């Protein structure tokens, strides 16, 4: 018997992680509500996510949910315990190209970096990949270059 996770989310009261999954035998969609226990506004979300992922009663259901996603859900629950709105939490995970990330505190910056990591990991070449080249050089050539639109407004220094 196996389960295919479809969607997941949170419920604030009581703090729980909600999972929609399909039973692969019966093809029926089910909902599973997993209350998060001994979780406070000071809890370590990464650790909580890891514990849940390995939890004997839940791990089969969570097989296809990544630990980083579980961590994100825990962060949303913890934000709520700290009095932040859901909008705040969701925005903190959103990447916005115009936002000045220098202005963020460590915690929110780490969330943004976590979002960036998805693409980074996808494009990352690992050193044990067969086609890994340590000193990879690519000459992009200057001939076909166009001016970057970022230079259009002629500010000082540009």
């Amino acid at each position, binding site marked *: 018997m196996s389960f295919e996770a479809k969607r997941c989310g949170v419920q604030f009261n009581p703090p729980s992680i909600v999972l929609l999954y399909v039973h692969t035998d019966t093809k029926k969609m089910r909902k599973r509500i997993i209350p998060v226990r001994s979780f406070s506004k000071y809890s370590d979300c990464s650790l909580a996510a890891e514990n849940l992922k390995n939890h004997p009663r839940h791990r089969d259901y969570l097989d296809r949910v990544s630990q980083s996603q579980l961590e994100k859900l825990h962060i949303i629950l913890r934000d709520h315990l700290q009095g932040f709105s859901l909008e705040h939490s969701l925005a903190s995970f959103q990447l916005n*190209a*115009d*936002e*000045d*990330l*220098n*202005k*963020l505190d*460590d915690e929110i*910056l780490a969330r*943004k*970096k976590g979002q*960036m990591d998805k*693409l*980074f990991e996808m*494009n*990352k*070449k690992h*050193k044990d990949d067969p086609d*890994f*080249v*340590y*000193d*990879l*050089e*690519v000459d*992009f050539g*200057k001939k*076909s*270059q*166009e*001016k*970057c639109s*970022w*230079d259009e407004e002629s*500010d*000082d*220094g*540009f």
Partner: protein
Amino acid sequence: MANDVGSIPDLVQKKHDVGEVVKIICLGDSAVGKSKLMERFLMDEYRPQQMSTYALTLYHHQTTIGNKNVVVDFWDTAGQERFQSMHPSYYHKAHACIMVFDVQRKITYKNLYNWYKELREYRPEIPCCVVANKIDADLKMAQRSFNFGKKHGLPLYYVSAADGTNVVKMFRDMIKKALDYKQNPRDFIDEVLQELENFDLEKKEENSEADEDGLKTESPEFV
């Protein structure tokens, strides 16, 4: 000459046996990929030394350039970029600077102006380059020319810390330039400091009248 071997104290002499020591600093906004670039270049050697009280991270790297041993101290910020300004000690005695922006975020490109301005206040002459990082995310950007580098006569590298494109080339080039700079410094202020250090050693007893003006006229070849 400023680096008259006879006047260099023992401690410095020992360092020279290990190889020439150069300091290279990284500048740029939060999350442009400065640390990921270091990590990609250093690979297994990647053992950062966190100096959390100073919000900076140091990496030591040993290499050879030509047949010379070189020890590189890389300085990376660990949150100090938040203040959009670095402590003067960050710039102190740096031999080269790597300035990074993120090709996915225009604001990080525009902020180069401020980083560069601050760099030149402290280090008017050290070699510097502009690094367009994350080109894996948007290859089109490698076909764009960026004015900032051209305007200030700085080389531009299109790189990706993720897939490794041009990372090693950029670092190797900058180590060479740092070394070259150290051996042929152009910053007048460095010379003055060195002169002062040597002066101190030689003439400790004397009540020297070597004010800055006096030194300036003594080493005109560096102006």
